[in-house]
């Protein structure tokens, strides 16, 4: 793709990246604590979007179950924080649900290292297992998507039903300290913001590396013609499993950051609606472009905040209008705008250059 880019365009791209980096790094200077906290949350969402884009935009697998992976990461972190906050006593919701001792699977979460590792590895492992049974049996397209929805329903029902172990519908909330630092203090908030920025950049670099590597080429080949890939001698299932698993791990990481910023995780965050919302970020931002996916998550969530604060009674209509406009007029998502600018400058239509997506991913 880069070979075809003319140098002025490359300059534009560079300018864009610089602007984004400056905006991110200077955010604590011009945003209030509350807004910075919100932005940090959006950046965490952007990490989910990157992971989703990896499997949907590049591999052609539509997952409507990323809420589960996000939630598992969130719960892992929340369990650690809750144990910290309880200070050796039983977490409050266990107490009023009739438990007298800490369940065995809660115990290791008192170590931050374990909780952090579990927050990434648990979702990745779950995705690997799910992928093993589906991709190996060549279940794909809509059928795979339906399976991911089933995963969502099963997990949410399980988490709500096991109130004594998971906090039920309320989820896990009411914690205040991380490493002895109050999560409420502006300093901690700022540190957490930086941690999120670094995580997002790392996730972006990882995804970009994967996409540009031979691995990424195979992923795109699977997207465009799975059978051909198989006939050439590759085993698509392995690639799909690995990509799906990485994607889930990124969602888990985002979930952990989300809990640190928001202070609550509940089954409602891993339900069907948030899972679909995550896909929307990618679709609106621009499937098949990493920057587009991340921007989509940030812009859509900012729009949601701004609209709902300005028009609490009618904000959903604005969001709806935004979706319709993007779907009807920008089929390639917001990232497709860059293509349009090119068109504006050159005065002619730009054809597909293989990077944007113009074919159905679900077949």
């Amino acid at each position: 793709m880069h070979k075809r880019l003319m140098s002025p365009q490359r300059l534009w791209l560079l300018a864009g990246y610089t602007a984004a980096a400056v905006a991110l790094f200077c955010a604590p200077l011009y945003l209030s604590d509350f807004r910075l906290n919100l932005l940090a949350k959006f950046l965490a969402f952007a990490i989910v979007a990157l992971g989703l884009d990896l499997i949907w935009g590049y591999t052609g697998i539509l997952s409507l179950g990323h809420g589960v992976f996000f939630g598992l990461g969130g719960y892992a972190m929340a369990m650690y924080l809750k144990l910290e906050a309880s200070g050796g006593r039983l977490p409050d919701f266990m107490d009023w649900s009739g438990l007298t001792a800490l369940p065995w699977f809660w115990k290791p979460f008192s170590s931050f290292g374990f909780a952090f590792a579990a927050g990434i590895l648990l979702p990745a492992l779950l995705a690997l297992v799910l992928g093993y049974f589906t991709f190996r049996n060549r279940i794909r397209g809509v059928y795979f998507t339906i399976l991911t929805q089933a995963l969502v329903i099963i997990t949410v029902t399980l988490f709500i039903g096991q109130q004594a172990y998971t906090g039920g519908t309320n989820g896990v909330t009411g914690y205040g300290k991380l490493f002895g630092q109050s999560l409420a203090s502006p300093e901690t908030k700022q540190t957490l913001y930086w941690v999120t920025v670094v995580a997002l950049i790392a996730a972006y670099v990882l995804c970009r590396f994967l996409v540009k590597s031979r691995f990424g080429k195979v992923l795109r080949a699977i997207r465009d013609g799975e059978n051909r890939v198989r006939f050439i001698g590759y085993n698509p299932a392995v690639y799909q499993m690995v990509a799906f698993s990485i994607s889930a791990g990124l969602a888990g990481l985002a979930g952990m950051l989300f809990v640190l910023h928001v202070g609550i995780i509940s089954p409602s965050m891993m339900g069907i609606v948030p899972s679909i919302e995550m896909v929307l970020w990618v679709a609106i931002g621009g499937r098949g472009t990493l920057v587009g996916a991340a921007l989509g998550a940030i812009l859509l969530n900012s729009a949601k905040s701004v609209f709902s604060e300005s028009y609490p009674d009618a904000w959903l209509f604005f969001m709806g209008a935004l979706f319709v406009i993007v779907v009807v007029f920008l089929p390639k998502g917001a990232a497709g705008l860059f293509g349009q600018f090119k068109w504006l400058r050159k005065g002619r239509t730009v054809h597909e250059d293989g990077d944007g997506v113009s074919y159905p991913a679900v077949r």
Partner: protein
Amino acid sequence: MRENVWKSLSLLLVALCIALAGCSNDNKGSTSEGTTETSGAGGGDGEIKVGILHSLSGTMAISEVSVKEAEMMAIDEINAKGGVLGKKLVPVVEDGASDWPTFAEKARKLISEDKVATVFGGWTSASRKAMLPVFEELNGLLWYPVQYEGLEASPNIFYTGATTNQQIVPAVTWLLENRGKKFFLLGSDYVFPRTANKIIKEQLKAEGGELAGEEYTPLGHTDYATIISKIKAAKPDVVFNTLNGDSNVAFFKQLKDAGITAKDLTTLSVSVAEEEIRGIGVDVLEGHFAAWNYYQTTDTPANKTFVENYKKKYGADRVTADPIEAGYDAVYLWAAAVEKAGSVDVAKVKEAAKGLEWDAPEGKIKIDGDNQHIYKTVRIGEVQADGQFKELWNSGDPVKPDPYLKGYEWAGSLSSGN
């Protein structure tokens, strides 16, 4: 070429949308900053900002919008009488969107960006649990207007709905005395029904009741054929119903279709009020029982004017109900506490609120200084053909709130560690 025109047009529209939203937000932001700069927390010259945070969209909107309207009405009434401390109340409305993390986010925004003096909001326990750490962290003040499962007393929350010993516990005692010993517990699968049923089971053990069955269905569940056959097989004297929302429609309709009416089987619901009767239909609910602290028919002078004003403002077909009234009370109680304290400072308001009394539509209520709940009268009602309740029994005097059920010996195991 035409396509190009469309594209540019749509781009323009998107840009316009964003600019519009941005502008309005900017305006709001700058005015709020302006006012807070001049006079500190709580609002500017001649006005006090208060937050209202309910779900205006999503599954809970159907219930919460009415509470929001009652709170707005109370604010308007107070403003018409000259406001609080001579200042006008300015409501800042936010949408919790039936999503618990959103409640936490909006609560944080109201306290730290808008600097409201207090917040009235929440319905589900989950939304309250999500907001609680935010209010404690930023030392805000929340007025929560709905009956709930108890076992909580945050120093930053006032609970104007009933706790368990003001609704569920007396209802069970009344049923045991008047309707029979064999209980079937049916609820939606979330925290309130599960905790409520845990309490009921302990109480049945202690007061000589018998458990005939216990079933939970997911929120929004609509197929009750299996459960109704289980009820038929178990032959309970009473079905204690903690179902929430739409499920009630399905359950009561299918119960009637199965040939079971209120004459054959006693049901008592704790989440079915006048508003829900409108939705479910009087024909299927007539004769069934509910336990609340307030009905539209409650006979007090304050209630007459309250119902009249509510209907005048929002339409003659509207009804009032317990949570609506509790939301309305909350605004008045807060205003009275502020007047008494002479300030909107959270600590001073809390101190002033201790023991505060007010003639609410439900009768005399009083704030308990210890747990910041409200003394309330318990009322058991029967659904009439006109969709209103006829009161069968009431507790006479307002009952002292006891969120941890410390006054009940059998509840010892429930409140351990607190």
